C-alpha cells in the first residue's frame, strides 16, 4: 500500500469583476523573472496575461500553466452573462495554436511558478501588485502522491525537446559535445 502525503497546492483565485485592466500583474511578473532580477520588463514574457476585449468588457487575467505539444481538436467558446469569451480564453496552456505564454525570442514555453524563490514570498508578486484585489492567493492542503523531484536541467531539456523534437535536440547535443 502506498502512503499518501499531504502537499500544499498554491493557486491564484481570479475575480474578473474586480480587474481594472492595468496589467500591473504582467509587468511585475516579467520584472521578477528577469535575469538579473528586476533588470528588465516585458509583458510579452509574463507568465500572467490579461486578456482584454474592452468593448465586450472582458478583462480576464490568466496565468500560464503546462505546456502542451498538441493543439486541442475542438475548441470552446464561452458565453457568460452575455459576454462571449474567445476560444482558448480560459486555457492556461502554452500550445502550438497561439503565441501566449512563450518567450518572444526563443518561443520556449513559460509557466507560472508562483514566484518561487529563496526566501519564499508570502504571496506571488502579481497578487501583491494587484491593488484592485482581482488576484487572491490561496493555499490549500491536498492528499496525494508527492511528485518526484526533477532536476532543473531535465525541465529545460524537456521544454526544448517539446519545441524542437528529441532528434534535433540529440543531434545538437552530440554536435556540441564533439566540439568541447
Amino acid at each position, binding site marked *: 500500500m502506498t502512503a499518501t502525503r499531504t502537499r500544499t497546492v498554491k493557486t491564484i483565485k481570479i475575480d474578473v469583476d474586480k480587474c*481594472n*485592466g*492595468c*496589467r*500591473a500583474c504582467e*509587468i*511585475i511578473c516579467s*520584472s521578477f523573472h*528577469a535575469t*538579473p*532580477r*528586476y*533588470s*528588465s*520588463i*516585458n*509583458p*510579452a*514574457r509574463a507568465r500572467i496575461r490579461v486578456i*482584454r*476585449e*474592452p*468593448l*465586450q*468588457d472582458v*478583462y480576464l487575467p490568466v496565468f500560464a500553466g503546462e505546456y502542451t505539444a498538441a493543439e486541442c481538436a475542438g475548441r470552446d467558446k464561452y458565453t457568460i452573462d*452575455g*459576454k462571449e469569451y474567445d476560444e482558448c480564453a480560459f486555457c492556461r496552456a502554452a500550445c502550438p495554436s497561439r503565441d501566449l505564454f512563450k518567450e*518572444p525570442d526563443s518561443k520556449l514555453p513559460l509557466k507560472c511558478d508562483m514566484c518561487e524563490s529563496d526566501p519564499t514570498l508570502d504571496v506571488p508578486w502579481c497578487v501583491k*501588485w494587484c*491593488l*484592485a484585489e482581482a488576484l487572491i492567493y490561496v493555499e490549500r492542503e491536498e492528499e496525494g502522491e508527492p511528485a518526484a523531484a526533477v532536476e532543473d536541467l531535465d525541465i529545460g531539456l524537456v521544454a526544448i525537446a517539446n519545441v524542437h523534437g528529441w532528434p534535433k535536440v540529440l543531434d545538437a547535443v552530440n554536435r556540441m559535445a564533439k566540439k568541447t
Partner: protein
Amino acid sequence: MRYAETGFNLEIDLTRGSIQRVASDQRLTALHLGGLGTNARMLWDLIPPEVEPFSPDNVLVFGTGLLAGTPAPGTNRTVVSAISPQTKLFAFSMMGGFWGPELKHAGYDKVIIRGKSPELVYLWIHDDKVELRDAAHLRGLGTMESQEVIRQELEQPGAAVASIGLAGENRVFFASIEQGRSSASRLGMGAVMGDKNLKAIAVRGTKDLNIARPAEFMRLCNEALQYIKVREKNPIKGVMPILAGLGSPAEMAVHDEQWHTENFVWGNARHRRKGFWTEDIQQKWTNTMDTMRTRLLSCHNCPMKCGASIAVDTRFCSYMMKCFSKLTYTMGAMSDLDFGLRIAQKATEHGVDAFTAPQTMAFAIELLEDGILSEKDFPGMPADSEGRFYYLLDKIVRREGIGDVLADGTHWAGERIGNGAPAYAHNNIRKHEQLPLKLGMLNPVYFLMYATGEKASITQIEGGFPQMPFPTRAENEAFTADWHHVPDDRFKRWFEDWELRGENSNPLYPTAEIASEIVHWQEMMHYIDDSTGMCAGLSSFPLKPPFQIHNLPALIGAGAGLDLDEAGLVHLTARNRTLVRANNIRRGLKRADEKPPDDHWKKRFPELEKKLLDEYYAFKGWNEEGVPTRESLHKLDLDYVADDLEKRGILKAPGAAPARPAAHDGGAP
C-alpha cells in the same frame, strides 16, 4: 546600454513615404529626460517660428516619457507635440493608456512625423517591422471603430492604436487623438494628424525595457504602492471629493457632484446654479452612473481607477471615459448626466476635445439667442437643447455650414463671425477654452498659474498646494503635520498662515513673493511628470501624492541610470520649462497674452496683478516682457536659445544700441 528608454526614434516622412530608425543622442536624455523635455528640444531644432500648423513642415511628435513602461506605477504617458492650429504656439497634449509602453516595447522612444501623405494612411509598428498602410477604408470611421478594424485586420488583439475620427480628418481645431482608454485632447493635435493624412498609429511591441539599478528602483516602486494603499484609506478631509484621494482625478468613481455643478458655470460658461444639487438630482445621476458605467478602469500599470467603461444602448461598453468630460457636455447644454454620457460617446468617436467642444456649441447657442447668429445659420436644427448639441456636433466634425466656422473654436469663430461675437468667446486663455469656472475673489496663486501656464490648462499646472485654506488655523496645521511633499518647511508655514478672511487672505496673501514660489513648485512637479511620463494623478496633481520632489530624483536616477539629485532635477526641470517657453516666445508669445479671462474673477486688481506678474517673471529669470534673459538661459545651458532670440531681436544683444537713449546721453561733455 540604454535604460528606461530604448535609445531609438522612428522618423517618418509622409510626403516621401520614408521610415527611418534613428539612434537618439544620449546627452539629450541627461539634459531633458524625455517626453515633453526632449519634445521641446526637438521642436526647437526642427520647426522655425514661421511654420504654420497646417504646413507639411509642422512636425508631430509622439514622445513617450523617460520612465514610461517601467514598473513605476503610473508611468504610461506620451506627450504629443506640434504647433497648435488653435493657439499657433508649441502644444503639448498628453495621453496615458497603453500606447506609450507598447511603443517602448517595440523599441522606440518617439515617433516623429513630418510631411503630408498624398493619401489617407495609417502607421503600423510591430517591433522591427514598420509600415505605412492604406487607410481609405477607415475614412470617416470613429476612433473606436478604427481601432477595432485595425486590430482585426492585423490580427493583433494586443496592438495599441491611437487614431483620429472625423474631426481630425476635417482639421477641426480641437480634434483629439483617441486610444480607447485615453486621449490627447487639448490643442488640436488630432487636426495636425488629420492634415498629415495620418488616420492612426498602431503599435505592438515584444522587446525588453531595461532598468539601470533594479533593486533600488523596485524598492521605490514598492514603497509607492504601499503609500497608495495607506493614502487611499485616509482621504483628506474638508476638500471636494475628487481632491480627497489620489488620481487624475477619480471622477468616474464619484457620485457627489455638488461641488462641480454648483461652483462651475453652465452654458457658455455663464450660469452659476446654486442649490442645483438636490436629493432628486443626486438620486437620478447616481442611477445614471450605476446603469451606464460598467467597470472602473486604469491606465497601464496604475492602481488608480480614473476611467470607466460606459455603455450607451448596449450592455457592456461603447466607449471609455475619464475625468471631467463626465460633466462638460451636461453643463454646456444645461442638461443632465444621461445626456452628457450619451453625447460623449459620439464625441469620442468623432474625436474632439471635451473641454472645447461643448463650450463652442454653447457659444453658438448664445450667439443665436442674442441675435448675432440667426435661425438661417442653423437650418434644420432641433428646438431642444440636447437635440441642438447633437446637431452642432455633427455640423462641426463635418465642417458643414456654421459648423465650418465653429470648428475653429470660439476665438477664431468669434473673429470670423464678427458683429460683436468675439466678446462671447470670453472663457479663453491664449485663444484656448478653459474650464467653466467663474469666481469672486482673485487668488494670486491661481492668477499666476492661469496667466503663465504654457499649456493654458489649469489642471496641467495646479496641484500640490491646496486651492484654499481651511476655515481655521488649527485645520491648516493638521494638514501640514504630515506634509513631507513640499520642497521645504517654508511652504508649510505659508499654508498655515493663509486665512479665508482677514489680513492673510486673498488677494494680498499669499504675497507676490510667496505666490511665485508656490506656483514655481507646482509647475515644476508637472514638468517633471511630463518628461518622465508619470501620470499627474500619482504625482503633480493630487494633494499628498506618492511621488514627490524628494523621491523622484532617486526613482528617475535608478530607472534611467542617471546621476540625479534633487538640485539636479530642479535645475533640469527649469531647463525644460524654459525651453517650452522659448518655443512660444519665438513664435510671438507676449506679456499681453498672459492673462486669465477678464471675467474669471469678479474682483480684479490691475495693479496687484501687474506686481504679481513682475515678481514672478523676475523670480523665473525673465525680463519684464516675460522673455528669459541671456543670463538665465546661460545658467540652464540654453545659450543657443539666447543666440537665436538675440538674432531675432527678441532679446537685446549685449553691446547693441539701447532701444531708447538714456536721458543723460545728449548732455555728455
